[in-house]
């Protein structure tokens, strides 16, 4: 048992856990926002996969990791809108639409990778700049705590800040309240004069950005 304990409380273990946790946290945040906005979140998987790919491509073609991340976030928003258009405007079943987007992502990303690199496996052939790690001043000098808290990827810190930001946004701002109202009951929101479509697309935007960041972390982090 002592071996087990020393593994769990080692710095490497905690740092690795936080790294592995980051994309899951982004995915969960995206699903949470979808859920609060009353939109089924099946498509998150496909959105993240697409964002991971476009993140690499954006980073490769502009030679800038920041633009790569922004490309991924933009992809997330676009696909999220596509999903919203299919479910809200075309009134397709959200579960089926999600399955459609996930199917498309699973194949189409491989398709694009094959078209660009000539291999189906990965984008290893593309030499891309990655998102830098951040050393936090002062904190990094504290023993143990500094090693655990400092030196993570920039996107990991953004993920944790997003948790804070989203909880404030959803529970302390009028827009957040309206998003949750629309999510609970579209009819009720309509009856008090909330522009339902606007807040649904706001939900899609935020969730898309979260999924996009998650995808970017998987490929650029």
């Amino acid at each position, binding site marked *: 048992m002592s071996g087990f304990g020393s593994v769990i409380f080692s710095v490497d273990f905690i740092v690795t856990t936080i790294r592995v946790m980051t994309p899951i946290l982004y995915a969960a945040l995206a699903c949470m926002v979808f859920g609060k906005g009353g939109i089924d979140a099946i498509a998150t998987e496909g959105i993240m996969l697409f964002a991971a790919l476009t993140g690499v491509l954006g980073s490769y073609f502009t030679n800038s990791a920041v633009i790569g991340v922004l490309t991924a976030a933009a992809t997330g928003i676009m696909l999220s809108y596509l999903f919203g258009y299919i479910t809200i405007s075309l009134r397709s079943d959200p579960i089926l*639409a999600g399955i*459609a987007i996930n199917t498309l992502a699973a194949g189409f990303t491989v398709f694009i990778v094959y078209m660009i690199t000539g291999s189906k496996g990965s984008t290893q052939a593309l030499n891309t700049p990655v998102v830098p790690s951040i050393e936090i001043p002062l904190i990094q000098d504290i023993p143990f705590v500094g090693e655990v808290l400092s030196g993570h990827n920039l996107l990991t810190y953004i993920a944790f800040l997003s948790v804070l930001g989203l909880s404030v946004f959803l529970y302390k701002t009028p827009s957040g309240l309206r998003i949750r109202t629309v999510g609970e009951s579209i009819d009720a929101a309509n009856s008090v004069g909330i522009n339902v479509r606007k807040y649904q697309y706001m939900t899609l935007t935020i969730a898309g950005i979260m999924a996009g960041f998650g995808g970017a972390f998987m490929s650029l982090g």
Partner: protein
Amino acid sequence: MKVNSLAILDVIRVLVAILVALAIVFLMIFLISDTPLEAIGYMLMGPLTSLRRMGNVVEAMVPITFTGLAVVMLYRAGLFNLSMEGAFFIGSVAATASALSFNLPPVINIVVACICAMLAGGITCFIPGFLKVKCKANELVTSLMLNYVMLFLGLFIITQFFFDPEMNATYSYKFPDSMFLPRILEGTRINIGLFIVIGATLVLWFILHKTSFGYKVTLVGSNGTMSRYSGIKSGAIIMGSQFIGGMFAGLGGAVELFGMYRRFQYTGLTRYGWDGILIAIVAQHKAEYVPFAALFLAYLRTGADIMSRNTDIPYEIITIIQSVIIVLISAKVILLSARKKLIVKEVKRAELGGGV
């Protein structure tokens, strides 16, 4: 008459969706490929060029027909149960376990293995239905998660008890020779699984159209409140329908395993379950159309495979067709006004004719 013209409209919807999807893909091929006409030719006509390729179509059709039938049954009760993926997988695991554990005479051993697979698949799909009825748990979430439970449970069973150390991968021991489904056509791998799948289709059609259980399932799925008021035990009906649906998926796992493989060699989920959803949608959730929808998908797949081996277009372009078809068929807005007009017209005609 009313039913007929609405049904024709639904067929038109499906055909439009398929044609639009194909048009999008052909456009992409024209934009990307150096030899677009050749690529399209391979995709559309490739499967017909040799007996072996036609065989490939039928082989690919068998497992997805089973999952398509499973989806038709699962969704008939109005539940979005996605566990046919796990049911198919655990069905083939159960078949493996039965084939390697029991020492039974020929034919009986295959039957026993198939029954084990059906039970395993049935139990898998029963769990989300049970949780839905008893605990009001969202069947979508429980069934999606259950797929992973079944994947790792299955892999655990295979690696723990039936793992063949002489192979370099996580394969099971070889099945006894009597376990293989006999081939029925020389030069292809088409086996009697084809007859089993046709039989399964007939059984499902019979259950849905000729038994009171099938009628009750349809009623529960289309209007749960009304069926409750009319005294149907909707909970039992839902759980029963999920169990039967899972049995089709599990049987599919066994038939695919004994027809195409000599050992258990899956290392991940097969994705046949997701294909089943597409097939069920294209087949308009009618058992009798499922084999044709499966044949269509299998034909497209085989064609895309031949195309990818002969030209510069990768196989994955097929997923574009799949997703566009799903979206266009499930989109309620498309042809909605035509549908409304048709309903109004039919009702008026019925009124004039004094039929109703």
